[in-house]
């Protein structure tokens, strides 16, 4: 089935692409789920051989039920001699050494860079161990947290005599994070990033999360079938879990699970929506637990190491990113932003907030896809308009579907050379 599909795509591809860019999947939803067919992927070493370390514990009170997340992990690998370093920030719910971070870290190391993988500020572990407020998604705060974490990692790794300069990359939400961190660094000048690459960032986080939430409306039979549909997804993950080298409830693992047997076109949207729902449920519940906000967990109860979380879990997967924004995120930050409204606050968490910086930052580039499914209609035009010739827009690839395509990987690595 899979080979038939790939063969079909090969046949179909040349006729559909105007130029010689030959990423073969033209349905952006399918591209997002399938990624790049094996034979077209960049050739990378089988093992990344990353070292994994944990930073020391932060000084705020840790929730007892999340005792296993008290210290932030990161991964790194140094070249033998002197080289520049690349910090790589994972996408929504992503861990430092899994999913799409892994091929990128391999490619950067192979190209001669020291590499450091950083967990997304939306990952449960980051929310517990490294988020100062405990309520992630606030781009300025998240950037400050990441910036602090980067400095801790730099000090923790040592060998600064062998690091000749600093670079940064990020994909998806990690790309937006990278933009805000770069802006922060332009003022604080700790790293003086030589080059920063943003791969498939959302323009406005609110607009992208609304789109992801809406995709769930494609669940066959409507939202009351959510549980049944979710069970099917778990079943598919089960199949992938037996072959996979990691077990993780992340969007990327969900897509991995459906590679051999992708659903029909209408259901692809539901699948993408639910994959991100797994990530959002983890993030939202962790934030609720960190702050005792009373979003899903009653504010006056404390969870112990043994507390049953099933009743909260089934609510958490039914709550969307937009519910989080309106009934948790904004009410949480509102007292600190008397001049903002619920609607204007959205803009602070979009690239519009750092647009002036991005226009004038020669060291920041963006790679994007014309058909990225997380962008609303017309949003793609922001990138060539603001970045000018520092923007590279590929004709197809969906959301990160073409990331591992050999042409993309060569351009990504080439940008830092």
């Amino acid at each position, binding site marked *: 089935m899979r080979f038939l599909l790939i063969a079909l795509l090969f046949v179909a591809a040349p006729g559909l692409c105007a130029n010689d860019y030959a990423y073969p999947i033209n349905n952006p939803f399918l591209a997002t789920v399938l990624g790049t067919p094996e034979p077209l992927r960049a050739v990378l070493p089988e093992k990344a051989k990353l070292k994994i370390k944990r930073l020391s514990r932060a000084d705020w009170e840790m929730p007892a039920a*999340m005792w*296993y*997340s008290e210290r932030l992990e990161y991964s790194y690998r140094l070249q033998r001699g002197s080289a520049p370093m690349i910090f790589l920030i994972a996408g929504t*719910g992503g*861990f430092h050494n899994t999913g799409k971070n892994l091929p990128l870290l391999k490619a950067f190391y192979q190209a001669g860079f020291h590499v450091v993988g950083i967990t997304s500020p939306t*990952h*449960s*572990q980051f929310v517990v161990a490294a988020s100062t407020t405990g309520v992630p998604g606030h781009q300025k705060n998240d950037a400050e947290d990441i910036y602090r974490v980067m400095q801790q990692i730099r000090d923790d790794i040592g060998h600064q005599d062998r690091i000749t300069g600093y670079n940064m990359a990020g994909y998806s939400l990690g790309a937006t994070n990278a933009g805000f961190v770069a802006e922060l660094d332009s003022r604080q000048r700790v790293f003086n990033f030589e080059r920063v690459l943003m791969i498939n960032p959302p323009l406005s986080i609110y607009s992208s999360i609304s789109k992801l939430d809406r995709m769930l409306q494609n669940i066959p039979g409507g939202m009351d079938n*959510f*549980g*049944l549909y*979710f*069970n099917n997804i*778990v*079943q598919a*993950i*089960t199949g992938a*879990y037996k072959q*996979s*080298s*990691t*077990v*993780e*409830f*992340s969007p990327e693992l969900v897509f991995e699970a459906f590679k051999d047997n992708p659903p029909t076109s209408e259901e692809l949207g539901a699948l993408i929506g639910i994959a991100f729902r*797994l*990530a959002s*449920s*983890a993030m939202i*519940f*962790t934030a609720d*637990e960190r702050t005792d906000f*009373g*979003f*899903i*967990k*009653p*504010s*006056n*109860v*404390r*969870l*112990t*190491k*043994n*507390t*049953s*979380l*099933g*009743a*909260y*879990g*089934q*609510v958490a*997967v*039914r*709550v969307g990113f937009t*519910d989080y924004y309106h*009934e*948790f995120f904004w009410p949480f930050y509102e007292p600190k932003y008397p001049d903002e409204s619920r609607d204007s606050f959205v803009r602070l968490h979009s690239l519009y907030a750092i647009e002036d910086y991005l226009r004038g930052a020669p060291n920041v580039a963006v790679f994007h896809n014309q058909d990225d499914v997380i962008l609303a209609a017309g949003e793609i035009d922001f990138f060539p308009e603001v970045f000018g010739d520092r923007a590279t827009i590929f004709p197809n690839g969906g959301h990160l579907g073409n990331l591992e395509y050999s042409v993309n990987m060569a351009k990504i690595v080439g940008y830092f050379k």
Partner: protein
Amino acid sequence: MMPRAFFSIALVLSLGLGGCSTKPVIVSGDGPEEPVFTSERLIASDVESPFQINDPLEGFNRTMYRFNYHADRWVLMPAVRTYRFLIPQPLRTGVRNFFNNFFNIRTVFNQVLQGRPVRAMQTTGRFAVNTTLGIAGLFDVATHAGMPYHREDFGQTLGVWGFGPGAYLVLPFFGPSNIRDGAGLAVDSAFQSWLDPLNFDDHPSRQYIYYPLMILDTRDKVAFQYFRTGSPFEYELVRRLILTVREIEVAK
């Protein structure tokens, strides 16, 4: 039978530790405050949910789940890393092949009990080929020859006989399972020590090679690591996942 005695002691110890409540603690007021979102507000009561699974042993299971994390982190995984570092890949493959072949005995026993003579013959053939041509099972000749591979245990046999899985059960060291499969595991090991194919009775020292290698190989081939899935609902999601895996394996 030292290793098994060790497991029994661990099991008894862990049962003693497992009585903790699975309820949250209310820190102020008479009852829990109403959160923004509740299941009553969001979910129709007849809707199926992967989070609603009968788990009467949850207190014990959660304690055991944490015990396994620590056992894994401080004992098993360091041992596996040392094993990977010291023993070259071809030798480790040989070890894996040996155990896969050795457990064909268990599979045949269960296929017979399940009333599947064709599969039992296939597995017997496979065992015969790998034990002889494959030099005591170190080489997997049978797979290269295209012979089908099955893996059956007594938990699956009980399933075929119509026994339901019973309550979810997290076993020390062995990890997530259920009552039926836990019992199956006990029967399978009892059968193995009764049959004694490696003649431990006459050569007790063989156990000191067999058990450590079996444990290392078993852990080495499982990718899962406790508390690394990135979800605070890992316990619940893994529970759904494991019960599903076993349903599929019984039905196969």
